[in-house]
């Protein structure tokens, strides 16, 4: 495979393009609403209407407005059809011949679409994720080619530092610095791992990226591997994402066939292979060291850091771990340049962020917006507010590690530091909207129960502390707790946060702490008076 071959494939793909493309969403959300049958019927209808010469029915990745799925678009009409059923596929195709249809039409000019800025999701809903040619036709693998031909690994790292990209998995560690550390560590063997163990309940960005544009992740990994000097990569995907796994397997196979993975990529000395590792249902495996243990086929328990994976990771070798969205950002950065990327977003948070918008909100689905977009723009304009005329009460970001941001802070720009200041975190990008019917203590209890279930059990504060915190939250909800219990809960939050071994435990108190911060009244309303002289004034009483 050389440059020319890539161009040949791209040209061929473009030449084969038919006049009209009907895109049918084939991501997991729409597929659960029978989009596969919709696609099949569309194809049949196109054939029966003898339109197949000029019309292509294309299965594509996520078209973002999941709540209205199955989604179908017709580019010649600039139309988006919503809630298409296998039954009205024929009717839809007839519109190409001037027929009418009663199928619900979406509005591309709605802020939900208009306010999006697609870098990571540029190909999502556009190309067929199961064909590498489709990816190549949209400049796919060009970045890898450029990097291998024209840049030294050191330059690749420098470019990444310049871009200002920060890890999209949660904590927002600068990607360039991470790459640089792994690159600098000397070792005959290094690894690159893609963390696709998207465990936050309420997050499905990474699933969508893998289902919609798997090659962008592979290309990103290959560029990272070249930069840090690794020749083996692993993608750790959760077993709950069978479609993403299937599409990744297809993508890896195709890339290998074309020589874009394997030995001497683009006739350079660079070799890189990727294997898939399937998780088995353990949230803690999203934590780097636990994930590595799991890749090694062990119990996914974390270990203390340092040593950091960059120095001693998989099988003791330097290992680079980035998340799916981080890798998907890589090819565009090298195609368009670090300056271009750094011009998007805010001073300290560059680029865009993909969010999974869900919960009590009218438009649920996937959005990608520049960093710095306010929460209000996201939930009110794009999301269309809460359904049934209710008020938005809070937005939960960061899953069980994050917090609930109350409505009065909706004008906060979404970036790593602003969210942190509010006691939440960016997290991987799950955004759950809660309306005024939501009881915040129950939300705290929900997340604490999650942490109790998902604690690996290795360290005492996380294993035993979360159990006690859950017990106290339940006691409060059952109206059996006093102010003394609330004080105990707060003390435990502080302790578990500062003494737990890994991120799971260290952030487990966050949903409780943030609801206590903004919705303390809801807790206090549930408290019982201090009968029986329980520690009045917080002090034990001495005689005299």
């Amino acid at each position, binding site marked *: 495979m050389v440059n020319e071959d890539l161009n040949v494939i791209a040209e061929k793909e473009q030449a084969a393009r038919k006049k009209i493309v009907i895109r049918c969403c084939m991501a997991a959300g729409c597929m659960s609403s029978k989009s596969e049958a919709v696609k099949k019927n569309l194809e049949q209808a196109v054939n029966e209407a003898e339109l197949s010469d000029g019309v292509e029915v294309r299965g594509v990745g996520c078209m973002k407005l999941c709540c209205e799925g199955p989604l179908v678009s017709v580019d010649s009409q600039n139309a988006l059809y919503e809630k298409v059923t296998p039954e009205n596929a024929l009717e839809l195709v007839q519109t190409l011949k001037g027929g009418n249809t009663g199928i619900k039409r979406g509005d591309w000019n709605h802020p939900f679409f208009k306010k999006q800025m697609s870098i990571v999701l540029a190909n999502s809903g556009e190309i067929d994720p199961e064909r590498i040619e489709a990816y190549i036709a949209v400049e796919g693998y060009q970045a890898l080619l450029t990097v291998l031909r024209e840049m030294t690994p050191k330059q690749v790292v420098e470019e990444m530092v310049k871009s200002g990209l920060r890890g999209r998995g949660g904590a927002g560690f600068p990607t360039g610095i991470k790459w640089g550390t792994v690159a600098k560590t000397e070792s005959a063997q290094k690894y690159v791992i893609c963390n696709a163990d998207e465990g936050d309940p309420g997050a499905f960005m990474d699933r969508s990226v893998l289902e919609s544009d798997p090659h962008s992740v592979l290309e990103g990994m290959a560029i990272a591997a070249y930069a840090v000097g690794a020749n083996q990569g692993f993608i750790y995907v959760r077993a709950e994402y069978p479609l993403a796994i299937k599409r990744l397997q297809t993508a890896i196979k195709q890339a290998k066939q074309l020589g874009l993975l394997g030995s001497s990529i683009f006739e350079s000395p660079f070799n890189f292979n990727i294997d898939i590792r399937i998780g*088995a249902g353990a949230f803690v495996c999203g934590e780097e060291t636990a994930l590595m243990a799991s890749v090694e086929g062990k119990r996914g328990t974390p270990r203390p850091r340092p040593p950091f994976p960059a120095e001693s990771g998989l099988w003791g070798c330097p290992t680079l771990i980035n998340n799916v969205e981080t890798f998907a950002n890589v090819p565009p950065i090298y195609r368009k340049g670090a300056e271009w990327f750094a011009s998007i977003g805010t001073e300290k948070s560059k680029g865009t962020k993909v969010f999974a918008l869900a919960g009590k909100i009218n438009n649920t689905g996937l959005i990608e917006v520049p960093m710095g977009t306010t929460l209000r723009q996201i939930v009110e304009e794009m999301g269309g507010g809460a359904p049934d005329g209710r008020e938005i009460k809070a937005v939960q970001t960061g899953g069980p590690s994050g917090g609930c941001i109350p409505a009065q802070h909706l004008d906060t720009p979404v970036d790593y530091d602003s969210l942190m200041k509010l006691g939440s975190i960016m997290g991987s990008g799950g955004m759950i909207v809660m309306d005024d019917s939501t009881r915040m203590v129950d939300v705290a209890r929900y997340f604490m129960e999650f942490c109790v279930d998902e604690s690996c059990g290795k360290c005492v504060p996380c294993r035993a502390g979360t159990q006690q915190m859950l017990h106290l939250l339940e006691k409060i909800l059952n109206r059996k707790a006093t102010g003394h219990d609330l004080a105990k809960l707060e003390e435990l939050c502080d302790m578990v946060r500062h003494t737990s071994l890994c991120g799971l435990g260290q952030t487990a108190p966050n949903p409780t702490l943030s609801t206590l911060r903004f919705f303390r009244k809801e807790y206090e309303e549930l408290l019982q008076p201090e009968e029986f002289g329980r520690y009045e004034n917080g002090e034990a009483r001495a005689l005299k």
Partner: protein
Amino acid sequence: MQHASGDKRFKILEAFMKKYQFRHDALIEILHKAQELFGYLEDDLLLFVAFKLKLPPSRVYGVATFYHFFTLKPQGKHTCVVCLGTACYVKGADKVLAAVEARAKIKAGETTPDNELSLLTARCIGACGIAPAVIYDGAVTPRQTPETALEQVKGWISHGQ
């Protein structure tokens, strides 16, 4: 060595292990395959894997019990997995689960005595856009209510009706 039972599935499993060169780091993939073949991981099967991979049985057992995906008990003929992710939860997945629990007279994680239905929960299946979602025999189904869920599992619950 062949498995004493002569069950062909052990042969398939062994071939799968061979594909991974009996590597220790493939243990989780192998357990996935074993569960796919046998439906659940019984002691005999875990022992076979331990023997073939040259691992202490306690290691295999430790891994098999760490991950929620693996089950050491046989599952019912049908499965109903209620997603309890945040998006599903705030949209009433708890009520869907409660309805099925009440009708099937089992708790989440249990199987009906006639072995027809296993009721399970998931932490998030990433189908938040169509919440609440339930997986009936592998098919993700969007926007469930207690009524639609009961309609789905109706045919799988016969006992006590």
